[in-house]
């Protein structure tokens, strides 16, 4: 559950709903289960993952429930209001938040832990891989400090 500007966004197992926080009026219902990890990147725009696959980034207007854009990739957070996703090849992409288009990209060797907060100018990321002998365990943790581009 996330509250943004008077709207309570409820993340159910098979869909996502937006309610007026004061009255409980259902404002919209989106037929896709989304992850509830990430705060809005800017204003009322929420950029999050498809809950089932974690391989599609979805930008949702929390007032209307409309999808502003969607594209392949796993959302890993945001920096200075720029949504960050990582693709299957582990390339990190900084996106235009209004269109979802690439602003820049940076290859990384392994998956990145999602960050719940906007990571700011000096972005710190941690990569990991799953232990083949124990797939629930992350190993080979590495930290990266990334000098981020300024947001256009």
């Amino acid at each position: 559950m996330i509250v943004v500007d008077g709207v309570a966004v409820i993340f159910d197992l098979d869909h996502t709903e937006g309610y007026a926080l004061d009255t409980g009026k259902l404002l919209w219902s989106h037929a896709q289960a989304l992850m509830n990890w990430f705060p809005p990147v800017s204003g009322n725009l929420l950029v999050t993952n498809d809950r089932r696959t974690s391989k599609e980034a979805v930008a949702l207007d929390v007032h209307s429930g409309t999808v502003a854009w969607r594209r392949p990739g796993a959302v890993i957070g945001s920096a200075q209001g720029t949504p960050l996703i990582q693709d299957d090849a582990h390339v990190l992409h900084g996106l235009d938040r209004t269109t979802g288009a690439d602003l820049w990209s940076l290859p990384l060797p392994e998956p990145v832990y999602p960050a719940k907060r906007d990571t700011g100018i000096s972005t710190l990321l941690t990569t990991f891989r799953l232990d083949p002998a124990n797939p629930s365990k992350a190993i080979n943790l590495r930290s990266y400090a990334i000098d981020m581009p300024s947001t256009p």
Partner: protein
Amino acid sequence: MTALEDLAATVVQVLAAAATGAGTGAAAIVGDLVRTRLAGSGQGQAVAEFEAAPQDPAAQAVLHAALVTVFTADQPFVVQVTASLPPTTSVPVARVVPAQSNSGEGITVQGNQNKVKGNFAGRDQFITNVRNGDVKTLAVLILVALVAAAAYGGRQLTAAPAPAVVPALPRIAWEAGPDEVGSPRGVVGTVAIFATEDSVGGRDSGTGKVLWTYRDGERRNRLYSTLDRATETVLVQGSGSVKALNPATGDAIWTYSIVDGSGTTGGGADMDLVGGTVYVCGFDTVAALVAATGQVLWTWRQPGPLPDIDSVETDGRTVIARTTVGGHATFFALDAEKGGDLWSETTPSMADTVTVVDGTVFLPAESGGTEIRTAATNTKRWQTRARTT
């Protein structure tokens, strides 16, 4: 040697060094990039020959030629490789290849008011010049952009005068690991704060050098930590105390001991920080402290002999403290300013948690949904069918 030939030579040098075991993670990234891109453009044989004999000048020359060919045709790849080179790689200014806008509306040198954030080491003077509005440096930047664009196919070289928007690319400033690096908490001043389950540490944000590490006793007790950006302190809660650490040194600025009703020190389960006040729970107690000084604003003890308070959450107006008893969870709502009791509620499952935000509390309902209540009064406003997640 042209800038692209020079860049290709640097890449070959980095990959040859990596083959001897002297490489870094960044070199591995460059290697992956080159391998993937060249394989996709019919130049995979050059990579194969190089990898078979990375120190062979002939194999290096073949890879160099292949890279120049691909660089010439693919400027985004140039940008990608340049951004991925190890930070210590010496790359002359002439290799600066600003990103090209992908808008299809001509070459745009992007950025912000002549401010450039570089993508390679040894760039500082150049950037300083640009930041200072040095005309020659700006001219070089724009010229290199145009040359790169011409090499890329001359697309819309005659576009309308590009706005003075200068691109900035990301780059890896440093990397650390593997393991024992912890999760990043953020940057305070020039110190990057990381935390593991039982430690908090500061690294120089520019170099990654470890400046200090804090652990809670020899038994390496579990630590909860958070960063207070307002006071620029690191708050850590270990066994029996909460401390505010100086992010530059790791030294304690203040310490608050958690004691139970009998005066025993210990415990410490959770804390939450809002608006310069840190709310701490341990044993049967919740305390509100000024994050900057450690001054105790109020303390609250739960009524009766109940299990310890195990979590605390606040929106700055209402504090919700949780305990579990008899297979249920019990929540105590407190006034955040003065610590007075507001209400309490027991929910069906001991796994239940609540969320409090903007004066509203979200409580699990017996029907399976979520009840939305006014946090100050516990008055139900509405209910969802779904459990909030």
